[in-house]
């Protein structure tokens, strides 16, 4: 989706778009479709950037996705909000890492490792 189209969307629509993309990511991971996942990742980043650019940084609108039933949606919402809501996001990241919901538990655990080592710097 082009940047201009994202600019015309409401915050709620952007959250819906984020959810749809991350659900697709989960499917791509399940099927080992890594190239497709990487395209979806770029689309997700464009949505995040659009939310960030909105007045007051609207990435907080992703916080309700912490309760989404899909682990990929939760994981990506958590990583997208680490900069704006660090403490609840970190708690959720730990919860996902300990959840036995793989592969998201694996990625969440690696993110904790990378935060500890200063490699992952949420902005």
């Amino acid at each position: 989706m082009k940047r201009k189209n994202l600019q015309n969307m409401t915050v709620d629509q952007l959250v819906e778009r984020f959810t749809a993309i991350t659900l697709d990511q989960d499917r791509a991971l399940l099927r080992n479709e890594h190239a497709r996942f990487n395209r979806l990742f770029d689309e997700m980043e464009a949505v995040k950037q659009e939310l960030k650019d909105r007045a007051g940084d609207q990435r907080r609108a992703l916080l309700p996705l912490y309760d989404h039933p899909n682990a990929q949606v939760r994981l990506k919402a958590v990583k997208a909000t680490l900069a704006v809501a660090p403490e609840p996001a970190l708690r959720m990241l730990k919860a996902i890492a300990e959840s036995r919901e793989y592969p998201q538990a694996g990625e969440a655990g690696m993110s904790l490792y990378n935060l500890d080592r200063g490699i992952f710097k949420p902005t």
Partner: protein
Amino acid sequence: LLDIEAKHRTAWHRSHFNPNQPRVPAGNPDGGQWTSAGGGGGTSDPRVVSDVTPDNAWKPGARYATDARRVPARVRIGKQSVELEPGQALRLVEAEARAQDAIARVRELDPSWRPRPSADESVEGLIRTHETVAQQAQARFRELASLAVSSHVPRQRPPTAQERHDIAREVARGLVKYGGHVIEGASWLFEYDALIEAYLDPPKTLDELRQAVSTSKKGYDLHHIVEKTSADEDGFPKSMINGPDNLVRIPRFKHWEITGWYMTKNEDYEWRRPRDYLRGKDWAERTGVGLEALIRHGVLKP
């Protein structure tokens, strides 16, 4: 069954993923457990840098709630009030809490579930009863969870290998997530028995994973601790890349998950793939990442 699954997922997220629910810190007897008391705690995490104002809903300085649990001095058994011996009180409270937690989980799936009645004549008997109730509830939970996982499996063998693979992986994931072991009603899934069983392996020691390399086993793959592609591209010798120190045998579905992690873009590495991040890094750095990936994906014991 689909209804059970939906209920279960709702229940599971309610019980495990409430971001406002505090946890008992590690090192405590209840370390890592969710706790219902208290309102959150902790302080700002210096690892997170931001150019925006953080959400301050979190209450800095608030304490985790482990010590808020009331430990009784006496307990009523039948018509008698019995004084608790040192150490008994905490064991009793913990056993009761485990039983209540297990009952709550199973009742989210089966609201009518009741433990078998029992009569207790001593404090130790009461503790044993709580332990038995927790076991009964956990067994029933596993049974219901297996049914929930089974509900995703068509009885007819799907026509394409891709569909069969997708379902087998989803079943494996579900069994790990819910702690189940039995799937009923889809004989075609036996083709994937070895792959699914392997995925249920508990984490092993590095020695165990390395020693297993000498024998092949259905459902398992050889895995390079230091990621092979980026090491090849950076000119590390084959003797290191394919050497015994760098090879482990792990469940195939886990192998795919870890490979997927290496091959997909990631916020952690400035939106690069871990494989790309590792380019130019030394062997020790790569080994550290490789071992951590095995630990975090539930393959290697920490």
